[in-house]
């Protein structure tokens, strides 16, 4: 094959009909038609304007929250769904690991199911025969292969499904959330198998919520949210964009704004040491926050404060201008103040930053902006909480 691309999607959209609680039956359809209540089902777009190409031999990770349209996308590429809009072209044999063991019949033995599943995946009887031992060996089920699969554990089920699916030797392999099933030994085997596929120049699309695994195996990452592409590119940057969105969504419900509003915080900007706007920082990096405010009238000796909390809401660090010994005589109208943290010595993870403006005697809260700004810290060192230099001796 000479095509440069293995998969090409052009403005692909997929619309689903939502019928609400009521199931459609012959009766309901007839009644609706007779009474003129026929409205048709409501609709929603699971995917919209999805447009990308996957180069032959590339491994593309697909990330996004639940319901972002990831599995719908793979179903469209597999061909079980038809796009409502746009077009999809695949070049080469596609094998999908969408739901491992789908099509296994519980009453049939593992052996019979291997042949059935192989046939579904497009293998001939001889091909399965030839690879049968390898399949059973890979799944680690030699002793169980003649048992009906209904006696299998869910792990065994998935292992057998994966073992057959990788024997198909496809040009394009679609994998949906397979990395997270099975025990550690089996996961290792899966990763090895995927590495082998990569070396052989196969094209792979991998959906996973295990972001570090996605970064490890992907050449590029596609980030979907609510059915649209939010990013496609270098794994680390795309994963970061996704994490940033996750953090934003996480704080959305927790955000609280209150106070007398005699002065309000009109804008907050987070920048890194180079002065670029950022919301992800490395361990030990500086953080510069510019807080813009707007006061209704002259306010004497206000205090600006901040707090960094972990996702559970525990304060990791907090301080204010009063503690820092910065006495602000008064503010009036619009203005800005800058907070600089020299070194962020926090463990890797997600944090939320809150800000406040209150009176010198702490009696009046002018403005409090709580749980409003999520940030992420990346760190290579393993520790928890706030970093302290420590040594052990014995």
């Amino acid at each position, binding site marked *: 094959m000479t095509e440069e691309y293995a998969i090409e999607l052009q403005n692909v959209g997929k619309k*689903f*009909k939502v019928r609400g609680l009521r*199931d*459609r*039956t*012959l*009766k309901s*359809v007839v009644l609706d038609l007779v009474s003129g209540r026929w409205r048709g089902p409501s609709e929603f777009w699971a995917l919209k304007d999805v447009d990308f190409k996957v180069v032959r031999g590339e491994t593309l990770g697909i990330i996004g929250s639940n319901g972002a349209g990831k599995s719908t996308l793979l*179903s469209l590429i*597999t*061909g*079980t*769904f*038809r796009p409502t809009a746009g077009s999809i072209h695949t070049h080469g044999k*596609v094998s*999908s690991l*969408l*739901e491992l063991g*789908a*099509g296994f*019949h519980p*009453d*049939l033995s593992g052996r*019979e199911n291997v*042949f*059935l599943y192989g*046939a*579904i*995946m*497009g*293998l*001939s*009887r001889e091909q399965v025969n030839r690879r049968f031992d390898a399949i059973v060996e890979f799944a680690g089920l030699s002793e169980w292969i003649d048992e009906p699969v209904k006696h299998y554990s869910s792990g065994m089920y998935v292992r057998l499904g994966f073992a057959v699916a990788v024997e198909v030797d496809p040009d394009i392999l679609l994998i949906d959330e397979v990395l997270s099933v099975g025990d550690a030994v089996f996961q290792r085997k899966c990763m090895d198998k995927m590495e082998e596929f990569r070396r052989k120049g196969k094209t792979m699309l991998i959906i996973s919520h295990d972001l570090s695994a996605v970064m490890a195996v992907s050449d590029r990452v596609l980030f979907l949210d609510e059915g649209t592409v939010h990013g496609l590119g270098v794994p680390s940057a795309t994963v970061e964009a996704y994490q940033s969105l996750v953090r934003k969504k996480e704080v959305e419900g927790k955000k609280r704004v209150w106070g007398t509003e005699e002065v309000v915080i009109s804008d907050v900007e987070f920048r890194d040491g180079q002065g670029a706007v950022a919301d992800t920082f490395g361990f030990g990096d500086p953080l510069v926050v510019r807080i813009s405010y707007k006061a209704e009238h002259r306010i004497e000796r206000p205090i600006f404060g901040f707090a960094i909390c972990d996702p559970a809401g525990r304060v990791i660090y907090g301080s204010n201008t009063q503690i820092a010994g910065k006495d602000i005589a008064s503010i009036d109208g619009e203005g800005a103040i800058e907070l600089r943290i020299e070194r962020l010595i926090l463990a890797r993870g997600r944090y939320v930053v809150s800000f406040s403006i209150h009176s010198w005697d702490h009696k009046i809260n002018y403005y409090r902006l709580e749980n409003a700004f999520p940030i992420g810290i990346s760190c290579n060192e393993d520790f928890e909480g706030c970093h302290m230099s420590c040594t052990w001796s014995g």
Partner: protein
Amino acid sequence: MFTERLSDVYEHRGLLWILVVRNIKIRYKRSVLGFFWSLLNPLFFIAVYSTFLKLLSVKFRTDDPLYLPMLVIGIFVWQFMALCLGDSLYAVVGNSSLVKKAAFPRVILPISMVLANLLNFLLSLIILIGYLLIIDADFSRLYLLPLLVLTQCALCLGLSLIISALNVFFRDIEHLLGVLLLAWFFLTPIIYPFANIPDEYQRLSFLNPMTGIVTAYRMVFLTTDIMAPRLATMSMGIAWITCIVGLIVFEWLQPRFGEEL
């Protein structure tokens, strides 16, 4: 479209065969008598009908020596159809995980189900022929049998395609089918000879493809009960038309299966 689909199915013949074997295996899994049920069932029907019709002393001549072989043929032939249609309800719906997750020509599902029932029927046909040998039936027209079986398969497939596809969208079909089958059973000359149909309804009765098929089976095995060949041909023509309609309906509906299930 049809040639394209045909080569598609041919390409998946391995899967088709495995599904046929699976359907047969599953049917008799964990039943002690296994395949014999497909013989015992019609035998019970025959016993029940012949006994009760005698007791009720109905108008047609149940004491005719040919009544019993006629009933036996009718019930075996009907059984093939009834089992097919019953299974067809679940041909697609019962394989929802496959339909949702794997790409293959969907039409394979009802086809494999009809083929599994055909194998079953062919086996029971051996028993039927054995019985007919005992009663010294006339086998001079046996060469017509393959064409007849094929025609019945076409009818079974056509209806199975429609039922299996419609049941994806309207589960009412499950409840409707039993009643419709019962009515159809009595509208078809199975427990009564064709000759018992009033003259003015005989032509009409051939619009029912099963009338043509059942009477043709009897024509092959028993020299009596010969009916108008032209009308029988029309009846069988309807069977083939049903098959084509079924294929069209199924192909029209199948793109939406994945989402509907």
